C-alpha cells in the first residue's frame, strides 16, 4: 500500500510545513498508540511530522525519526520483540548506525525505547516493573546528558516532569554494560525520587555512543501543550517540559542554536 494512504483515517489534514524544514518521521506500527501525540509534539517543536509506516522500508527522506509508544505488534511476547523486524526498522537501523558525520537521530519513547533495545541500537533491556503493575503518573527526571541530538537545549542536571505510563519499564543491563553507560555519561535521563519500576541505577533513558539514538521510558510528547501536559506548580496539567526534546532536535537539524 502506498505511503499516501493516511495512517489515521479522519485525522485533520497535516499542518502546513513550518519554515524550519526539519522533517521528522513518526513511525506507526499496527499497535502504536502515541503516534498522533508524537506528531503533535514535533509540530509544536517547530518541525514537520512525516508519517512512516512499519511495512514501508523507505524513510521518505526524513531528517530524524521518532518511535512512539504503544504496543507495536501486541507485545505479548516481549515489548518491541516483533517490531524490531519490521521493514521500516531495517532502514532505521542502517541509517542510525551509518558511519557518516551525522547519523540519523532516532528517539524511542516507551515502547519505542523497547524496540531500540530489541534492535540492539541501545544496550540493555526492559522487564516488568518490579511491582508488576501498569503505572501511570507524572514523573520527575534529571537530564544528565545534554550532548545528544535530542537534549541539547536542556541544561545539565535540569529537573523535568513528564507523564509516565508503562508496565514493562524496568531497565536492566549487566554490570559491565551499566558501568560503561555510567563511565561514558550515556545515561541521559534518570528517575528522581522513589523509583517507579526498580530500574538499575534509576535509569530512565540512555543514548548510544554517538549520541544520535536516545531511548526513554516516560513520555515527553505528553508534556508539550499547556492544559494537556504534566501537573506543575502553575496548575493542572500545565507542564510542557517535554517540548524541549523536540525543539532540541529541530534546532540541531537546522543547525540553529535557538
Amino acid at each position: 500500500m502506498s505511503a499516501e494512504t493516511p495512517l489515521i483515517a479522519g485525522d485533520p489534514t497535516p499542518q502546513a510545513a513550518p519554515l524550519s524544514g526539519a522533517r521528522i518521521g513518526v513511525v506507526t506500527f499496527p499497535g502504536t498508540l502515541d503516534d498522533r501525540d508524537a506528531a503533535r509534539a514535533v509540530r509544536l517543536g517547530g518541525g514537520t511530522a512525516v508519517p512512516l509506516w512499519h511495512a514501508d522500508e523507505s524513510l521518505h527522506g526524513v531528517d530524524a525519526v521518532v518511535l512512539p509508544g504503544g504496543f507495536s505488534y501486541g507485545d505479548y511476547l516481549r515489548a518491541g520483540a516483533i517490531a524490531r523486524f519490521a521493514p521500516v526498522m531495517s532502514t532505521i537501523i542502517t541509517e542510525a548506525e551509518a558511519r557518516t558525520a551525522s547519523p540519523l537521530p532516532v528517539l524511542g519513547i516507551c515502547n519505542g525505547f523497547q524496540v531500540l533495545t530489541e534492535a540492539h541500537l541501545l544496550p540493555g533491556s526492559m522487564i516488568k516493573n518490579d511491582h508488576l503493575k501498569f503505572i501511570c503518573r507524572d514523573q520527575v527526571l534529571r537530564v544528565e546528558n545534554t550532548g545528544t541530538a535530542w537534549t541539547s537545549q536542556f541544561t545539565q542536571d535540569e529537573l523535568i516532569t513528564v507523564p509516565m505510563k508503562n508496565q514493562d519499564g524496568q531497565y536492566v543491563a549487566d554490570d559491565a554494560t551499566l558501568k560503561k553507560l555510567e563511565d561514558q555519561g550515556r545515561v541521559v535521563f534518570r528517575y528522581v525520587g522513589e523509583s517507579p519500576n526498580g530500574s538499575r541505577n534509576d535509569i530512565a533513558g540512555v543514548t548510544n555512543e554517538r549520541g544520535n539514538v536516545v531511548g526513554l521510558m516516560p513520555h515527553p510528547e505528553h508534556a508539550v501543550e499547556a492544559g494537556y501536559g504534566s501537573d506543575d506548580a502553575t496548575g493542572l496539567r500545565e507542564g510542557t517540559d517535554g517540548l524541549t526534546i523536540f525543539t532540541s532536535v529541530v534546532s540541531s537539524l537546522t543547525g540553529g542554536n535557538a
Partner: protein
Amino acid sequence: MPTILVEVMPKPEILDPQGKAIANALPHRGFTGFSGVRQGKRFELSVEGEVTEELLESARAAAAEMLSNPVIEDVVSVTVAEDQ
C-alpha cells in the same frame, strides 16, 4: 540444588493472543513450516535439600491453585529436574 519444573499452557480451546502474534510474525522472518504457536509459562521452583514426595505434592497443588488459572490454563507437567 534440585528444581521442580511446572509447565502451564493456555487451554487448547482458548484463544491465545500471544501465540497468535508470534505465529503471524514468524513467516515474515523466514521461519515457515510452523502451523501454529501457543505460548505458556514455565516455572522453576528451587528446593533446598531433597525433593520429597510431599514437596512434589505441594508443588502440584501450587501449580493448580496459584501458578495456573484453571479457567483458562492447564498444568501440563510438574517434574523434578536435578542440576538445572
